Each structure stands twice: as structure tokens, then as C-alpha cells.
């Protein structure tokens, strides 16, 4: 007897329909085989399925069983074919009918319950796109799929309850309600509040600009001056993801298997801070079955690279193209996968190998030559792609606490975040008809369209280009930064003081 159970597989952020054909033959020796390019995890499904069926109190047929995963020429991996295979086998011994227009997906535990699966959100999106009505997925992953409207997501706890659902007259498992999409939303949680950062007024200002416009930022400063602290405080001033952004980010996390069980949708901006020993594949993404790297996991959020100069050059250079395009395509002989990677790069570095150049107390032991060599490690093209550059001085805490001029209480993250949210709102309005969310993403044609400059400002910018030797790319970066400063200032037009402030954060020659 042959039965076809519809399922699907994810490749990158794409989903392909997979038909699981199960044949339980009347004749032949009792065997159990899977064909259709199964990976090791799929092949081991045999043992899980057999044990789960028996432990759920059903009989495992002593017949010749052949499972075919169609299309047969696409390599299959993952453990979520367990459920369709088990259903196919059980249909030969038990009397039930699978509902029309459904997808089945899930890994079985040996006791017959279903485990958390990666990619549930992608599956729901696929079902919606193809007009498939029902989705049977593990209960712990159901919240993720339930955010998609128009698909009945059935949370399946174990094999036994699912069979009861099919066998009884009435449905025993109720589909998840659509409103559950708001389940498990966390507020932004940063390690530090901006008001805890003492001094570093310019550092905070530049963080605010970066957060408002999604700009890349490069910080230079001696050890302990507060670079890392500022970066770690950044999530606290970033506004939550918008609905579209949230879906984009959750897709990547779902496909990569980073969604927590019961998790529904990611509302907070991701903050990734890979260590400098990270491999190129780890950062950019790749592998024989392409996986998203840290830059994609930082999509719509922050990629913080501490000790930027310690990253191997080849790793850093590979950031160039994604930084420009906001996405990247990983090509392998078997498949080509596109991952979005619109991240804010926050990089920090010491000013010299010993770290104490410009330090008021400690003396630097590096020679000028060593300093030059050290700086050369970060390539010009990368620096040119970073909009904001800032030198952070060493904070003398004693001096600060005694300073009577510091009367006003320091601003906290919440206040900054409100201003930033307003600036982001303005950008959203501006780019309603464009595939762009923030000022930093603007291409030259957008700059020409949305950032008209007065004669006076053009003149200022030309003078500055000549005085500071700005490259053509840096020239446009300055306009983008000035646009963000104007947005923070709640101004429709960029004026000369916005532009002049932007010039403070230019790339150093």
C-alpha cells in the first residue's frame, strides 16, 4: 500500500516541497529503507520512527517498507521527515485519513513526542504562498509559524495525539490562534544604560547618530576608555524592529535554527559580537550546505567587531561587498543561496599595538613605524565604507566627578531612544516607495532625490573635500550622515551646521 505525505525542506531561506512516499509492501522480507538522497540524519530517522511508533503504543508493521523522498535528486538533510514517515507507516496499520492540503514536519523523540524544529516560520510562509491550508508542526515550534495569517497551524505534541486527532470524528487539536504572534516579545535589554557611561560625550553623540541612521561606526581609543561599554549600551537605544523587519530577521534565525523553543517572532534588533578568531565562513556564511553567518544574523541589527585590527585581513576584506549591497549570495555547486545582511557595523580598535598612544598618563612604547603598520591592517576600502569615525579619549574619572560644570543629569538610554525612534519614523516616511529603510542604505540616486543641498552647503562640502582629501564615496557618506543629523534635529532640510557636524566624523586620512 502506497501513501504520499506532503512535507517540505529549507535551503537557505527558500523552501522546496518534498513528497514523502511510503510504501508498506504485502510481500517481501521485513526491511526499512529510505531513498532520495537522504543525509545521515535522515537515514537515522528509521530508528527514531520505529522506536517512537512502538513507544506510542502502536504496532510497527513487519513488512518491507520503502520510503522515497521526492524530488529524488535534491539532497535531503535534517531530522524533520520523521513525522511524515511515521504517518505513512501508521496509515497501513491504522485507519485514518490525512487531511487534504496539508504539510507535515517534525522530528520525533523516542517516546513519540515531537521536538523543536528549525525553519517553522519559513514553512508557514511557504504554505501561505502555495495556498496550503494546514500545517502540522511540533507544538514547541508552533508559535513561530502562527505569526503568518491565513494558515491553520496545528501544534502537535506527540504521535498519539495526532493520530487521535485524525481518527476521531471531531478535531482534538485546535489550530493556534493568529493573535499569538505577540507571544514572547522581549524589550530591548542592554548590558549598560547610556547614563552609566561617564564622559565620552562625543562617543555617545556618535552612537546616537549611528543608531538613528543605521550607519557604520569606527571607534579608536586606548584600552579601558569605554569603547566596548558604549557598544554594549547600543541595543538599549535602538528602536524595536518594525513588522516587516521583524519578519525578515525571524526568517534568518528560524532557518539557522537559532529560534528558541516556544519563541514566536523577534522584535528586538539583533546584536552580534563575534570574537576576532571567527573564521570567514562563520562571519560571512557558507559551508557545503550554505548557512547564514554572523553578518546575516546581524541583519537589521548590529554587528560589533571588537579589536577590529586583530581580525584576519581576509575575513575583514570579505565584508566589503555585503556592506555595500546589504545582502550576499553564497554559491556552491549544488545550490545558490541568498542571505540578507543589512547590518550596522560597529568596529573598535586601539590606536597602536600597545594601546597607549595619546594616553595622558601611560606612555606609548610603539615606534611610529609600528603604529603605521598597525593602522595599515585595516584596509582603506573598508574604512571608506564606514560612515562615522570617532576617537575616544581616555576618561579621567576623578577629574569628571569633581567637575562642577557637569550640572545636568546624564541622559539615559530611554530618552535617547525616543529621539532615535522619531528619526527612524521620519526615514520610514521618506522611503515609503523605496526598498530602503534607513539613511545609511541610500544609494547615490536616493541621495540625489531625497537630500537636495543648497548652494551654500555644496560649497562647504567642496571646500571640505579639498581640505580633507575626501574620496567620492566619503563625499556621499557625509551627505547621508548630515541627513541623519537633520532627522534627529527634526529638520526637513539639511543645513550647514548639520553638514559641519557630519564632517567631524569623517574618515581620517
Amino acid at each position, binding site marked *: 500500500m502506497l501513501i504520499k505525505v506532503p512535507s517540505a525542506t529549507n535551503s537557505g531561506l527558500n523552501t522546496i516541497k518534498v513528497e514523502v512516499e511510503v510504501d508498506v509492501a504485502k510481500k517481501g522480507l521485513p526491511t526499512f529503507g529510505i531513498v532520495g538522497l537522504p543525509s545521515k540524519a535522515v537515514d537515522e530517522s528509521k530508528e527514531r520512527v520505529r522506536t517512537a511508533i512502538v513507544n506510542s503504543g502502536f504496532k510497527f508493521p513487519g513488512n518491507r517498507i520503502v520510503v522515497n523522498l521526492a524530488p529524488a535528486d535534491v539532497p535531503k538533510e535534517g531530522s524533520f521527515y520523521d513525522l511524515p514517515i511515521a504517518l505513512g507507516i501508521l496509515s497501513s496499520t491504522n485507519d485514518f485519513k490525512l487531511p487534504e492540503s496539508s504539510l507535515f514536519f517534525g522530528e520525533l523523540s523516542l517516546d513519540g513526542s515531537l521536538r523543536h524544529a528549525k525553519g517553522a516560520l519559513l514553512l508557514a510562509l511557504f504554505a501561505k504562498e502555495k495556498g496550503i491550508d494546514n500545517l502540522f508542526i511540533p507544538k514547541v515550534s508552533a508559535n513561530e509559524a502562527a505569526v503568518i495569517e491565513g494558515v491553520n497551524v496545528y501544534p502537535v505534541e506527540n504521535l498519539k495525539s495526532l493520530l487521535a486527532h485524525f481518527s476521531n470524528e471531531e478535531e482534538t487539536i485546535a489550530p493556534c490562534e493568529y493573535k499569538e504572534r505577540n507571544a514572547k516579545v522581549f524589550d530591548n535589554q542592554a548590558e549598560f544604560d547610556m547614563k552609566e557611561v561617564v564622559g565620552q560625550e562625543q562617543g555617545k553623540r556618535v552612537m546616537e547618530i549611528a543608531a538613528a541612521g543605521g550607519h557604520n561606526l569606527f571607534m579608536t581609543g586606548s584600552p579601558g576608555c569605554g569603547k566596548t561599554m558604549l557598544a554594549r549600551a547600543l541595543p538599549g537605544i535602538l528602536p524595536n524592529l518594525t513588522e516587516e523587519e521583524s519578519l525578515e530577521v525571524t526568517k534568518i534565525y528560524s532557518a539557522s535554527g537559532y529560534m528558541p523553543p516556544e519563541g514566536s517572532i523577534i522584535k528586538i534588533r539583533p546584536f552580534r559580537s563575534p570574537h576576532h578568531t571567527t573564521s570567514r565562513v562563520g562571519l560571512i556564511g557558507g559551508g557545503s550546505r550554505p548557512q547564514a553567518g554572523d553578518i546575516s544574523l546581524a541583519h537589521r541589527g548590529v554587528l560589533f567587531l571588537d579589536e577590529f585590527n586583530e581580525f584576519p585581513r581576509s575575513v575583514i576584506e570579505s565584508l566589503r561587498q555585503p556592506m555595500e549591497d546589504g545582502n550576499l549570495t553564497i554559491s556552491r555547486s549544488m545550490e545558490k543561496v541568498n542571505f540578507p545582511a543589512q547590518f550596522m557595523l560597529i568596529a573598535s580598535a586601539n*590606536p597602536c599595538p600597545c594601546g597607549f598612544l595619546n594616553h595622558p598618563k601611560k606612555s606609548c612604547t610603539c615606534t611610529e613605524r609600528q603604529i603605521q603598520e598597525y593602522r595599515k591592517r585595516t584596509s582603506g576600502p573598508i574604512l571608506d565604507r564606514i560612515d562615522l569615525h570617532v576617537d575616544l579619549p581616555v576618561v579621567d574619572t576623578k577629574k569628571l566627578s569633581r*567637575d562642577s560644570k557637569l550640572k545636568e543629569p546624564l541622559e539615559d538610554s530611554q530618552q535617547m531612544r525616543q529621539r532615535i525612534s522619531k528619526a527612524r519614523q521620519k526615514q520610514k516616511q521618506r522611503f515609503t516607495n523605496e526598498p530602503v529603510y534607513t539613511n545609511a542604505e541610500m544609494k547615490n540616486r536616493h541621495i540625489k532625490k531625497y537630500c537636495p543641498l543648497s548652494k551654500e552647503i555644496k560649497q562647504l562640502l567642496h571646500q571640505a573635500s579639498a581640505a580633507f582629501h575626501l574620496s567620492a564615496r566619503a563625499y556621499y557618506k557625509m551627505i547621508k550622515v548630515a541627513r541623519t543629523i537633520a532627522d534627529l534635529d527634526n529638520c526637513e532640510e539639511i543645513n550647514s551646521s548639520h553638514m*559641519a*557636524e557630519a*564632517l567631524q566624523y569623517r574618515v581620517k586620512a
Partner: protein
Amino acid sequence: MNEVINIDDAMYPKRLKEINDPPDKLYFKGDWDDDIFENCLSVVGSRRITTYGKTITNNLITQIANAGITIISGFMFGVDAYSHRAAVEAGKRTIAVMPCGIDIIHPAYQKDLYEQILDNNGLIISELESSHPPAAWTYPKRNRIVAGLSQATLVIEAAEKSGTLITAEFAKKYNRKLFAVPGPLTSKTSIGTARLIKEGAEIVTSAEDIIKFFNISIRQNKKETNLIYRGLENLEQKILDELNRESLEVDSLARFLNISVSELGKTLSFMEIKGILFKERGKYHVNQSTFSN
């Protein structure tokens, strides 16, 4: 092409012969011309030059070289290189005494400077053979030639124990005049110069102090100062007053003036574009050359 001058040649610099252990041979590159040795000032200083040191070196050496005094130094990076550069940029002659054979450019990345010195009729000299590598012992030996060739030695920035002080000792030993530029006592590279001043080196506050020593009359070019001062806004003037006292980073400056960093930032940008200020090593400095000449 390498050439060599022996100690008994007539062209051998007379002043160098006066020292107790003059080199037997001098290898050289460039056009050997006797009057290059007539008025010579040796300039020595720290390899770790500060922004202050750079400003001083540029200002002093440009004026001294323009007065027709040959600048002699050791081609090392730091004060040496800045002195040579100031001289060649003024289009004047300068002599580099190498710690190695003259065919070796050490440090190698200063190749452009090496060529500029020769292009401006300067000399590259050494007592070592053409491709002799530099070594720890060649530097102090080289320093005696630097001190021995000139009537006077000028020290700009020196740390407590440094090769610069060795050269200064040679100058004293050979009864040559010793000048030193004062610097902030908080700076490590001012400790050596402060000590030299204490021990009797003449303090230098302007290029004239040195030019007078060589008995050269200076063309008085009237300074038109305060030209730029006139067009300054109130805040710009305040910033300038603070920075003239001490170079500062943005955060401190904002604190002293009690304004926001964004407000201050835009004014600083305008001032930078005008060339009044420049930023180096995280701090803003007043561009002195804008106000002189």
C-alpha cells in the same frame, strides 16, 4: 656613484678633523661642495616625536634653513626626519649622516626623503662602507660625526636615556655650542632637554636665537598676524583661546566651554576647513603657520 674622501684630503671638513677620533674616510653621495660645511647646525631629537615637536621642528628648521644654514641630522625617523624634510621642503641643503653604509636606506621607508635630500644638492655621508648594515654600535659612532661636523647642535625633544643625549655630550666634549628647545615637563620627551638646559645648554625660543649665533642677518619680514583673527566668531575665538593654552580633545573642550559636543563639533569643522585648527592624535591643535607670515 659612491665617492670617498680621506682624512688627508684637502676637501675633508676642517671642523671634523678637530675632534679626537675623526673618521679616516668619509663615503658620500651627492655633490661635495666645501661651502656646504661653512655654517652647519646639527639637529637631533627623539624618534617618538610629539605633535608639539613636529610643530616646533617645522617652524624652526624652515626659518633656519632659509637663512642659509646647512641642517645636519641622522636620517632616523622622528625629529631627524622632520628636520631633513623641513630643509628640503624649503629647497635647502641638508646632510644626512647614516648609521650604515650609504647604499643602504635605513629606515627603508624613508626612500623618498633620501632622494629629496640628493635632489636638493644635499649630501648622504657615512664612515662605513657602502653596504655596511646598521648595528647597535654604529649609532653612537655616527652621532660623533653629527656633532663634529657643525658649530652648534640643536636638541628638540629628548627622553631621559637616549641617543640624542649622546650626541649632545659629544657636542659639549668638542666645545661646540649646544641649544635646546624647552618642552612641557609632563612629556617624557622633554626630560632630556630640560636636563640639558639645567646643565647650561642655551634655551631656544625662536629661530633668531640660532641664526644670530651664526652671525647671519635676517631679512625682517613683517608678520601680518591676526589677519584670520578678525573674521572669527565669538565661539571660534573662545575655542582658539583654549587651544592656544593647551591642545585638547573634543570632550574636554566641550566641558571647558560648557556646550554640547554637536554644537562644538560643527564649529570645529568650520575652523578645520579654514585651516585654523588641525586634528592629530585625537586632539585639536592650533595651526601655528596660519598665524605667522
